[in-house]
């Protein structure tokens, strides 16, 4: 047969002691020529492990315990390792998520492509160089980049160079493991387009691994393309994207769609997916999703559901799907299209305000002048980093990370700062907090200028604004208990509280962010990413701030966890009247949460207006480009 077929793949990893993890447990799919299969799932569902098993690159202790993988009729698991070396990177190639680390920093692009050409096609010398040039052109890079080293390339260019390397072996199937996750949205759109082009011009099969529903949709628009939704080591739904996105059949997939934040869901509570993905060594009596399923019934807990074809070509691993496939079988009946709310697509906003909108309504592009004082006023803020050169470290120029930014955030308002990486949004946040000294400009917090504040006065001011960072793993000191982490800020900024008062308040905060009270005595590593982000939010709230700076608070989290955190943020805003400065590159999250949006590029604010205006009537081309680059638009 053509392409790649995987049958009943099972991967086992030996854990400490006698524990056996089964990250992949019975996966079947096929990827034909010129077909794209998107393997979609949250972290920990086994999608990357599937890809590594196909490449026979499983980590230490991992092994394939069952299953068969066929590439054009060759059984990959039966090949000798030497023969597999020829297949790997040749007939079956893989590109990775992180373009920073997947290229060797001390080899030029030509050398790295040349390696692949020598290994798989026996080319060397001038021929190889000419071929490398052709490959670079095929991935949209100039041939003069041949002699460039990875550090001279941008993230998108590096990903292109890596793709060129993988094309060198003329693969029949290309596995792309989160190829665009580390890239900006505009670059992501280019790379996705490139992958689509290459697939059709070369007749390659493409196995795309992603956690992003929109990316999966974007890449599987063709009639032969399929989306496979993975959960707990199994494929729970297999369908063409049109069918899947119009009418998901598995409750898990439905939930995934329901938790997505979007502009048109503003003010609504996002649906939540309680619980967490079962541990890979869990033993299941029935359906793997039963514990978290909203439609669970008795049979789910005792009987493993089959993989039923609901409509031709659309399979779901669910007892309800069996009923839907054959309505006469079951008294429960199927679930129809009516149950599925909101299909993600192009963000459309009705001009009329949503009745359930949060009480703080955005009032056009300007702050409500006179009505309420701004919590935060930034005017002409600039942060310039000196470039020093030579033996005496003379300043020869400046990097203008933030270059004259003026913004205002009213009490209880959410201002989103949107921009691509390197535009200066994080530097701006740190300058506002005085973690970095601004070069010029003023920051006024609650009417008082922060510039020149020192010692005690600055400390007291710090209690009024706090920050929540992107990465919940590096933002909590691994050597401190959660209780101590929460109390640290109080000890510094709320001296009126004694030890018992602090402990009480810490317990109170844990309760507010939905964590068990006994969490105070534990260390951060015992918590999942979402829980850790809750701890970080509780820590920021500990000192009663009026303004919370949220620096990409959900971009390291899975969509279901993201929904929980966004709900929590919305609740806290309502209860405490907090103002948020919300920094993000994710437009759908911004659309859901923000009252006003500021678009930032190269250290300057290009456009600032209400969310409704920015999303529907962007004034400048750059905003339009950002909006159009978002994947998954039909």
């Amino acid at each position: 047969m053509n392409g790649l077929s995987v049958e009943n793949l099972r991967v086992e990893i030996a854990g400490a002691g006698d524990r056996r993890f089964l990250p992949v447990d019975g996966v079947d799919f096929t990827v034909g020529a010129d077909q794209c299969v998107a393997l979609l799932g949250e972290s920990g569902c086994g999608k990357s492990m599937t890809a590594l098993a196909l490449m026979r690159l499983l980590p230490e202790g991992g092994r394939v315990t069952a299953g068969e993988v066929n590439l054009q009729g060759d059984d990959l698991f039966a090949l000798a390792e030497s023969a597999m070396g020829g297949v790997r990177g040749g007939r079956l190639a893989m590109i990775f998520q992180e373009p920073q680390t997947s290229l060797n920093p001390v080899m030029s692009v030509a050398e790295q492509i040349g390696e692949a050409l020598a290994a798989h096609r026996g080319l060397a010398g001038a021929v190889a160089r000419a071929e490398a040039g052709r490959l670079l052109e095929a991935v949209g890079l100039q041939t003069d980049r041949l002699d460039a080293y990875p550090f001279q390339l941008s993230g998108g260019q590096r990903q292109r160079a890596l793709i060129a390397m993988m094309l060198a072996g003329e693969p029949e199937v290309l596995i792309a493991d989160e190829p665009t996750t580390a890239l900006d949205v505009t670059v992501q759109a280019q790379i996705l387009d490139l992958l689509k082009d290459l697939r059709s011009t070369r007749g390659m099969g493409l196995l795309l691994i992603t956690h992003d529903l929109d990316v999966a949709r974007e890449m599987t628009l063709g009639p032969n393309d399929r989306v496979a939704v993975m959960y707990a080591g199994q494929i729970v739904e297999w369908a063409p994207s049109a069918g899947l996105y119009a009418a998901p059949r598995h409750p898990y997939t439905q939930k995934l769609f329901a938790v997505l934040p979007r502009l048109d869901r503003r003010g609504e509570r996002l649906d939540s997916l309680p619980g967490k993905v079962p541990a890979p060594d869990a033993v299941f009596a029935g359906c793997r999703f039963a514990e978290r399923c909203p439609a669970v019934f008795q049979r789910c807990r005792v009987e493993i559901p089959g993989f039923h074809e609901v409509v031709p070509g659309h399979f779901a691993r669910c007892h309800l799907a069996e009923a839907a496939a054959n309505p006469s079988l079951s008294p429960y009946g199927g679930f129809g299209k009516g149950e599925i709310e909101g299909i993600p697509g192009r963000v459309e906003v009705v001009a009329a305000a949503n009745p359930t909108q949060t009480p703080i309504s955005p009032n056009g592009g300007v702050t409500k002048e006179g009505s309420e004082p701004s919590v935060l006023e930034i005017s002409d803020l600039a942060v310039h980093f000196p470039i020093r050169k030579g033996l005496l470290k003379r300043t020869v120029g400046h990097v203008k990370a933030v270059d004259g930014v003026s913004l205002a955030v009213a009490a209880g308002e959410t201002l989103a700062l949107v921009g691509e990486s390197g535009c200066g949004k994080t530097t701006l946040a740190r300058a506002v907090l005085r973690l970095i000294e601004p070069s010029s400009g003023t920051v006024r917090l609650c009417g008082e200028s922060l510039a020149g504040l020192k010692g005690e006065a600055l400390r007291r001011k710090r209690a009024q604004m706090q920050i929540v960072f992107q990465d919940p793993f590096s933002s909590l000191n691994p050597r401190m208990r959660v209780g101590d982490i929460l109390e640290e800020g109080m000890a510094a900024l709320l001296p009126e509280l004694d030890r018992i008062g602090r402990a009480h308040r810490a317990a109170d905060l844990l309760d507010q962010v939905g964590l068990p009270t006994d969490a105070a005595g534990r260390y951060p590593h015992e918590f999942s990413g979402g829980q850790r982000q809750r701890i970080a939010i509780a820590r920021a709230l500990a000192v009663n701030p009026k303004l919370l700076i949220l620096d990409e608070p959900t971009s390291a989290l899975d969509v279901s966890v993201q929904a929980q955190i966004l709900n929590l943020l919305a609740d806290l805003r309502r209860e405490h009247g907090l103002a948020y400065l919300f920094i993000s590159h994710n437009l759908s999250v911004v659309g859901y949460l923000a009252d006003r949006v500021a678009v930032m590029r190269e250290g300057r604010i290009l456009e600032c207006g209400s969310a409704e205006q920015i999303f529907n009537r962007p004034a400048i081309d750059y905003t339009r480009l950002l909006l159009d680059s978002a994947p998954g638009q039909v």
Partner: protein
Amino acid sequence: MSFKPVLLWSDALILLLLAVVAAGVWLLRHNETFRAPLRQVLASRMGSATALILAVYVGIGLLDSLHYVERLPDEPGKAAQYSGEVKSALDKLLSPLRENVEKTYSAPFATHLYAKETMTGPDGREVRDYPRLKHGGAHLADPDQEFWPDVLKRGGLGVLGGMVCWTLLILPLWQRGRTHSALAWTLLCILVVTGLLVALAPHYHVLGTDKVGQDVLYLSLKSVRTGLLIGTLTTLVVLPLAIGLGIAAGYFGGRVDDVIQYLYTTLNSIPGVLLIAAAVLVVQVQIEAHPELFDTAAARADMRLLALCGILGLTGWTGLARLLRAETLKLRELEFVQAARAFGVSRMRILARHLLPNVMHLVLITVVIDFSGLVLAEAVLSYVGVGVDPAMISFGNMINGARLELAREPVVWWQLVAAFLFMFVLVLAANLFADQVRDALDPKARGRA
């Protein structure tokens, strides 16, 4: 009183250190953050076993730190006179070993000297043969016949004695379920070895004798204190410098970083041995210029040892400081440090609560690796002639002596092997123990053991 206690400077430091540790333990006895890791270390197999071995070493070192001088026989009309020779409690315990001095080298368990001598036989004729030892196996009438039965008998008794002690010690603990097998087996090993030595050492030179006929077992036991002192005191000098300067350089950056970097680059660019040799020689000259400050030879040797520790410490902090600076540079950009700054937490507190605990694993690993390096450094310096006082018993001097012995024909191997064995067990135990401590301090690894 037939003796007078003597407090050498190093003894005073040891007592001070003990007092500080005891006070720390007393103050922190209810602190769960401190107790939990400690409990985990002592509950783990490796942790408890190595802690026991280290305790034996420390015990030997402490016994050897209780110094005294003996009172000389009274002469009428004069105030009490004391001997100029400073002894320790360990010397007292090991007095048979200390006093059983042979003429020169003898192999372990030998009954005869290692070198031939011209002797006058009973018949008046001169013969060249290996003479009997004065002490080793002197109780045997016919060594060829009686040696093995005697050794086996005494050894058997020693093993038996060790096992009896073990049973008496372990039974009550076992009944209360307070111990586990690794600890029990280690204790058994230690007691059996001790029993063997107690039974055999007074009658034989278990590890042979050195060039001037001193018992090598005695030398090895005496070296323990010197080794521990050099390791511990030097580390105590190194740690504040390395941690303070390393973390400060990494965290504050700018001028502070420049100054500290300049300091350690300068120190590093001077060849280490040269710098130490120069400093030791200066100290030595000072000591010799003021003989009135030291009433005994031991006090002088002791001061030289302390000076050596100080000098090794002052020159040895650069490696760890550089390591800590690099790690701190990485850590200070992490978001939990930024968050602490956003809370207005004071700089000292950030250094102490956020940075120090997160570099502690590096400190521990480096200190333990350096510990063995320091004992060896002492050997190297003794070789150059600027180490501890030549009269002081130390692993360094033992190894230094072994250098010549290895060139002899036939080879004299036991002094080197003895020093190696004692150091090996000490350094291995310290390494494994530090591993356990590091795991226990790391919240992620906790509970895995």
